[in-house]
């Protein structure tokens, strides 16, 4: 069994949740998201983020607007839609359940 792969799978599962959570706190520019993930010690490739954001946007979870930038063309700033907020809540409760469950299981050992 490939341990690296397992933990990668685990991280993959929560990536969406993390990104939604960051965007939920504040309208965010992709590199902001990367930066915030980094400070939380979650390192991702930026190349991973863009497709994910586009997918979430196409699923109407996210919306974006163009914001003027000093250093060039405007940037996309993402925010949650109502649907996205609902989705986030579901994810959140799932996460909490899982978290508690896992903790319990670990404790019992």
């Amino acid at each position, binding site marked *: 069994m490939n341990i*690296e792969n397992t933990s*990668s799978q685990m*991280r*993959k599962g929560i*990536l969406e949740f993390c990104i939604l959570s960051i965007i939920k706190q504040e309208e965010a*520019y*992709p*590199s902001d998201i990367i*930066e915030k993930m980094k*400070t939380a010690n*979650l*390192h*991702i*490739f*930026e*190349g*991973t983020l*863009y*497709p994910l*954001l*586009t*997918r979430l*946007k*196409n699923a109407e979870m996210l919306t974006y*607007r*163009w*914001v*003027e*930038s*000093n*250093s*060039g*063309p*405007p*940037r*996309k*700033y993402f925010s949650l839609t109502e649907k996205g907020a609902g989705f986030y809540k579901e994810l959140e409760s799932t996460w909490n359940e899982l978290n508690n469950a896992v903790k319990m299981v670990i404790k019992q050992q």
Partner: protein
Amino acid sequence: MKQVININYHGRIIPIEVTAFELLKRYTESLQKHFTDEEGKDEIINDIENRISELLQETINKGAVCITDDNLNTVIKSMGRPEDFDEVFTAKENSQTDKKENNITAPNKRLFRSENEKLIGGVCGGLANYFGIDVVLVRIIFIILAFSFGVGLIPYLILWIATPSSAVKEIGGVRKKLYRDGENKIAGGVCSGIANYFGINPWIPRAVFILASLSIVFNGNGYHHQIEMFSPGALFIYIICWLVIPEAKTTSEKLQMKGEKVDMNSIKKNIADELKGVQEKVQQAGAETTQLVTKKSTSFFREGIDFVKKIISGAVKIIVFVIKAFVYTVLAIIGIALIISLFSLSFAALAVFPMRTFLISDGWQNVFAWGILLFFILAPVIGIITWIIRKIAGVKGSNKFVTLSFWSLFIIGIMSVIGFVFTMSADFKSTNIKTEEQVLLTNPAVNKLIITYPNEMDTKDDVGFIFSAFMNSYGDDTAYIDNVSIKFRKSPNDSFKVMLSKMSNGKNRQEANAAAAQIQFNIIQKDSLLILDKGIRITRKNKFRNQRLLMTVYVPVGKEVSINNTFELSNDDIFTSQFPKVHEKSEDESTSGKVYMMQQDGLHELIINKE
């Protein structure tokens, strides 16, 4: 030697080595391949390319002459290759090597102020990052240093000023510039502009300016704290800042001011405004051309008028600005003065308050007195302080409940004042029947009489600032009031005679008479000195009912009289004005130290040649 080409990559002109350009093309192709089946393929690739272009621009801005292979590889590394995308998170080992590589490429680790971890200026966060320790630890160290004689403050400020913000370093970070913030202003937007620049709450610079403009002087003696109005220095600096710092007007200026992004709406608005301006110009130009066609000669004239108009409007703008600055200054002075007087009034009220028993009878008056103190004086003070703090802190909207309760408390205060004045005036309604008694003089035949007060008055028991005018001194159960006026008359014979009439108010005539009879006022003659008591004694039983004394001194013709006292109030205070007729001399002049001689036609001042 490598060839460099300029490419227009998503709106940015990037000088790039040909080999690096080939790498970039290959990378883009690999992305195209990877996302072939993806629904929003074009958008994703567009976004990624956009970001790459931004990162490349950033590299150029940092001083690279052009994009080299290494530069591009670094960028691609942070974006990730398609084969990495499935891995989602870069593995830990990866990030560690990342760090190592960073260290190699950037061996000079630099100290930045942290934009992510900041409470005030991000200095602690920056230090923590630099030394790799916890921010909280650094903060605690600084706080301890700050409390030990402010040692920590100076290095903090120096670091704040000297170290660049991490916003400069971070990719896509925006350099800040100091602008006045017109949108978030109280006076000129200087403070909020400064706050924007340092990324702090606007009330910090505001408080600094306000505190700096009030210089409070404490005299060692606890009673005499004066607030020396305000020092114009801070205001002067503010006005200079106002004049010097430009206001952020365009969107990009606003961006620079905050180091942030302004949303699309404001850009739209901005553009709309500009378009409007263009429209107007076009219309104007149209009008002008028609005129040009019809009357060529007038166009020259018109230009001249336009030029003059421009000058005039410029001058008007300057005048308006100066007037505005002046008005704001005056308003600020008035406001500060009002607040200070309100505060001193409340201090005074608090200090006077223990003395109320000299004045009021029990029961309702006491209730009214408390009502005045709490609701008429303290409630507005607290309310105003709250208001100022909220204003300074930029709290918007108001708590209706709080506002309402302040106003209702204040109304209770006003009612207390009315009730107090009403009951008080009832207590002062009547006056006594005047009686005059003669003061026995041990030697009425002296040639000169010097009326004097004991000097102890201004030493002990002085409650300080405003009361000296009202009460000389007061102890636990006695207060002295300075309600004595003196008039001079011609004596029918050649000896001095002093008559004293005691007067008082009261609820009715009997009470007024009783209060007048209670007045004890000692007058002792020692040779040519006539020593008066230090005041009319008021006790807690014997309330203040405007007890007053009128002392008439009959001066024989040819003899001299003078009032000799360092205590200025004794001859010319507010209470003597009640008897304008009895004074032989005009009251404007201080009679202290002057020597008068009684002559047949009245009292004359003797001009003494100073030696």
